[in-house]
């Protein structure tokens, strides 16, 4: 399966290599660099690159390429999914998965990789098991370790791997027993210039942070489970019960995990919580253009729209923009032509707007007037799909846990501004 792994940073240096079988020379990465050069953008490097003797499968996360070398047929998604799992594990261990973090913890990284794959086949990928094997580094532990010379490697041998619930450690103990569930929904939408929705769908996840003693058995039920069009579960969820009763029943892993991700289909009407009005005009022959953009809330059920960030790729001909923001700050990068406007919170009484003029390259032809506008926002305490958790029960343990549920709606891939021609125009 996976022969070797190379980590490549954005400047094209291999800063870590690990081999599970015979050593593969790092020169194999030259093929990768070639492809990297050919690609205009970093994310355009093809994930699978064939070379004469090997295949390179890479993922790009946090500006690091994780390049896996394989020699024979293997489902590419298998490798890709595994590499992402590796990154997730690193993130879990070191807080963030940057080149510096990996370099600082190179030994832990190596130990982790050793445990995660055996002869190129995934062995232990559950973070609970790994944490039992190798303790994540903390500042305190590093200090203690340097003084006492004790180790990161777990003293006792891991038992989780052997149990029937491999995702949960045994012997978990907490003084405060808590279970938090975050229902986070993201709206993916394409909205055209006139404000009508081209496509909109809701992708939701329930992230849980469960800190409960012993072996609790939880059930979570929804007020309106019918909303969920398509779901995927953490392996701990009992599928049969979901099928039969639409109840999530599970023995949770310890700590943070993603319980469920779901999809609310585009067939259902999605309430779009914000609207954008914009007007960008260029006059033929003049080197000036006008820019106007107004944001407003829409169908937010009284909740405030926060952390609003608008970004737009302006046409190449734009040299500079001289704008005036009624609130927040804006930046324009004259090189990448990227305009970003950090709006903050939308006040329904006084709608934020960004107005001003743009200067154009002299002599250039009239640029396209409909750049894409990408909007990010957050709405706390609301799940836009209307999904509601009904109750959470715990069985199998005596104590009473503290339970918390939080809702949030975010913009996912939310884009607007492109003008959709009418069918008639096409036919004309």
């Amino acid at each position: 399966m996976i022969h070797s792994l190379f980590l490549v940073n954005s400047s094209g240096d291999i800063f870590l290599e690990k081999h599970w079988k015979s050593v593969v020379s790092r020169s194999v990465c030259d093929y990768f660099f070639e492809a990297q050069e050919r690609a205009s953008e970093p994310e355009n490097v093809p994930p699978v690159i064939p070379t004469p003797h090997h295949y390179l499968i890479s993922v790009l996360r946090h500006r690091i390429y994780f390049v896996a070398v394989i020699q024979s047929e293997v489902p590419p998604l298998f490798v890709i999914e595994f590499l992402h799992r590796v990154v997730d594990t690193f993130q879990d261990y070191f807080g963030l998965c940057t080149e510096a973090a990996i370099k600082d913890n190179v030994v832990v990284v190596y130990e982790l990789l050793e445990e995660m794959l055996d002869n190129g086949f995934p062995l232990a990928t559950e973070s609970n098991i790994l944490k039992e094997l190798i303790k994540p580094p903390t500042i305190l532990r590093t200090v203690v370790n340097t003084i006492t010379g004790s180790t990161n490697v777990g003293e006792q041998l891991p038992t989780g791997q052997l149990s029937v619930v491999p995702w949960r450690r045994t012997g978990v103990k907490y003084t405060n027993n808590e279970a938090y569930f975050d229902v986070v929904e993201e709206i993916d939408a394409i909205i055209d210039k006139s404000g009508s929705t081209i496509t909109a769908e809701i992708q939701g996840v329930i992230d849980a942070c469960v800190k409960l003693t012993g072996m609790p058995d939880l059930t979570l039920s929804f007020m309106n489970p019918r909303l969920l069009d398509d779901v995927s579960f953490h392996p701990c969820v009992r599928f049969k019960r979901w099928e039969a009763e639409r109840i999530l029943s599970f023995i949770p892993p310890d700590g943070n995990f993603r319980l469920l991700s779901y999809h609310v289909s585009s067939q259902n009407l999605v309430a779009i919580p914000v609207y954008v009005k914009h007007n960008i005009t260029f006059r033929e022959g003049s080197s000036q253009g006008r820019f106007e953009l107004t944001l407003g809330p829409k169908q937010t059920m009284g909740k405030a729209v926060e952390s609003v960030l608008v970004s737009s790729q302006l046409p190449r001909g734009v040299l500079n923009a001289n704008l005036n923001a009624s609130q927040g700050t804006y930046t324009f990068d004259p090189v990448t032509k990227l305009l970003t406007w950090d709006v903050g919170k939308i006040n329904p009484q006084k709608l934020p707007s960004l107005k001003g003029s743009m200067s154009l390259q002299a002599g250039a032809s009239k640029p396209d007037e409909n750049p894409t506008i990408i909007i990010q926002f957050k709405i706390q305490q609301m799940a836009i799909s209307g999904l509601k958790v009904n109750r959470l029960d715990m069985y199998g343990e005596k104590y009473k846990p503290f339970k918390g549920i939080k809702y949030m709606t975010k913009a996912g891939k939310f884009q607007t501004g492109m003008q959709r021609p009418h069918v008639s125009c096409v036919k004309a």
Partner: protein
Amino acid sequence: MLDSNKDSLKLEAMKRIVAMIARGKNASDLFPAVVKNVACKNIEVKKLVYVYLVRYAEEQQDLALLSISTFQRGLKDPNQLIRASALRVLSSIRVTIIVPIMMLAIKEAASDMSPYVRKTAAHAIPKLYSLDPEQKDQLIEVIEKLLADKTTLVAGSVVMAFEEVCPERIDLIHKNYRKLCNLLIDVEEWGQVVIINMLTRYARTQFLNPNVNESLLEESGEKAFYGSDDEEGKEEKAEAAALAKRKPYVMDPDHRLLLRNTKPLLQSRNAAVVMAVAQLYFHLAPKAEVGVIAKALVRLMRSHSEVQYVVLQNVATMTIKRRGMFEPYLKSFYIRSTDPTQIKILKLEVLTNLANETNISTILREFQTYIKSMDKDFVAATIQAIGRCATNIGEVRDTCLNGLVQLLSNRDELVVAESVVVIKKLLQMQPEQHSDIIKHMAKLTDNIQVPMARASILWLIGEYCEHVPKIAPDVLRKMAKTFTNEEDIVKLQIINLAAKLYLTNSKQTKLLTQYVLNLAKYDQNYDIRDRARFIRQLIVPTDKSGALSKYAKKLFLALKPAPVLESPFKDRDHFQLGSLSHLLNAKAGGYQELPDWPETAPDPSVRNVEVKDSVPEWTKCSSREKRKEKKVEKPFYSDSEEESGPTESADSESDSASGSGSGSESEESGSGSESEESREESESEQEDKEDEEDKRKKKKKTDRGKVKAPAVETTSGKIEESSGAEEKNRAQKVKGRRSGSESESEEEEESESESSRSESESESESESDTDAKKKKKAPVTKPPPKQAKKESKKEKKEMSLLDLDDFEPTPSPQVTPVNNFLSSSLVTDLEGLSLTDTVMAPTTIAPSGSVKTYELLHRITGEGLGVEYCFSRQPFSPDAHMVAVQIMFTNNTNAETKNLHVEDPKLQSGMRIKEFPEIELLPPGEMVTVVMGIDFCDSTQAANFQLCTHIRKFFVSIQPPVGELMMPVFMTENEFKKEQGEKKKLNPSYSIV
């Protein structure tokens, strides 16, 4: 530092060494110093030493041997985890000398107590194989052994080993096939991927193509219904196998098992698992069922862009074959400006594949938007996509062409160039109507610089010079001027154009052509020189040029077939989807071809396992003896596990509800009454196996009928499938039973003594019932004895008639709760009675298969007129929607009953009744049978009506029990048998409670 005594120093040193390894620096010099520490007590040091060893042992084989003894010791450790890790490192050291040691260790570990060690052994197999392929035979033995392992932990790893070592030995899978299918859902995710991929291949070799003919199975009826009877299952399976070769297609039950068990995995969080299931469905499932994967695949589109990339590639392939599958998700493939280019292009591909007459306008509108994108590669791809839509869908060709022509005035040259190329292809299809477009394009030659586009224009003009006779020479003139500065590809087209013009319009262009050819003659590119020479010989008439020049016109101006714009993903599906080879569209090393479906199915009996070895549930009722033994221990449940039909489950339910009753039943059956009409339970106990099987077959027949029958009649269908639901249904009735059985027994006891018939069913039943009551001394609410007596008096005479009933197909009486004039307690009594009986008499030998009889009107209630009805399960010929209800009137009085007919039906909306013809006369003691039809509209609502005699009216109601609503379906014997075999397999049988 490594020589230091302090662990902390050693650790520090090892960490530095590992950091060196990680950076790719050579640390092999330190080998001797490191190896010494292999026996170190400190776990972390030990682990790091292992890391080092695994990395460098290959290079320093001799020194590595020093460490072997430590591992050998570790292999004997009482702690399973230490054993496992020792084996793991031992097998990871690639030193050929230790092959025998490894072999031995693997063999030992393969029979280790701990599944974890066995898993590690499975992992070690491919390592050893890659080190020394000659060990293959021995390793296969180990694999065979491990494949038989029943733990989920091992399954994934051993299949992986199987795939690496001996993927061709498909025969090893046979015995483990069902086990793997059943374990699948509990295997860890990586193992799932490997197993599913392997099973896909396996299924391709072992089962028939489900899409061979259009006779697709209805999935609805597919779900298991039978199951427990494994003993006979084997024989029947073999039979089914023999039949499977013949058409029409019936899915092998094992095939179905695989599909059923993988389906939930579509919900996995692991994209690789979802993809694996998707490809399995794509390659194996009947057309009608493949659709389920679309939703899951669309979900994956939300994932990381690399995942999207792979998924889209596969979706693109799927959309070519099964366009309908993804059509509902069209909008999910709309392109966002933030997508990376490679994703955009793949999405475009999918959108193009999805385009059809209905959605083309929306798709084209999207495409129009995309053309404005700043990503030029993407724009070019979009224009190509428009071209493909235009060729595929005739109606929009003109629209597209117009759109593309508009693009010709685009400011961006790339867009224009790409449009030209596409327009060229489109025009080739119908050049006649579009000479103005050609003219327009001719004008463009002045501006467009992209060689490919220029070449395209020139070719177009040359090809259709007759449509543009005035412009063509002019273009040639211009081109001749710039000839020397053109790209090669353009030059070739100029020569081409010149030649064609020369042939059609030699008057105007002769000199120009000569000029161009002369220029070409001295061109640097030999291709162009060759072409020029060739053309000159061909077209310019000289003395020498012979036969060919006559045909020059034919050669050049032959009608060229229009190009077919095809998806690059066409025919990619000969690679297994989801595989690396599919992605690259080239065979990757180690790729296992996906075999074609076999013409005839290989013998499925190879998958039969000694029942005990297979799935635990199956073993339970494998042997009759066993069951009997159990009966002795626990007479209680004896019958409940016998069959899987709804009736038994209800039976067991009621049994447990009223303990006394059940006890009696089993006793009764134990005592061995011979009565033919006795209930199923006792019967089955008395009769030998064959008989039972025989009967079961019959039952199955009818049951299958039920299942098969109504795709429409979902109510019955569903509930049948899960007898649990049935139980619920009955549960309410059970309440009434306690008191019911009690009174009933007394009542009947009395009648028995008077009528003194020993063989009648009612007797044996009552006898045992009362027996049980007495023995158990568990009297529940005693109903007023007076009442009971009253009833029994009435019954006295009727007993003889009752016996008549006994020779009827279905003897057990049942009362429907409509006896509104009886005391409530009696009603419950009767209800109870009815319940017991329905429950206990699920099948008897009846002409029409086994049929249950219900009582419509009790003889007491009916003042001597007893009416029973049953669902004859035969088509009701006057109206196919109606269910045939056979009604049996028995006159238990001394007087004649006249003018029996139905009156005043009170029906739920939509329900209809076809009344039976009036019965003029029913003499005392006689019985008569009529058939009426009721359309229950697939509901279980009761049909209420009045039953009238010449003196009285009775309110009665017929409520169809689930499973009785059916529609006739014609089926050959073979079909039936196969169905039957399948059913059995599908159902995880009901085990002993």
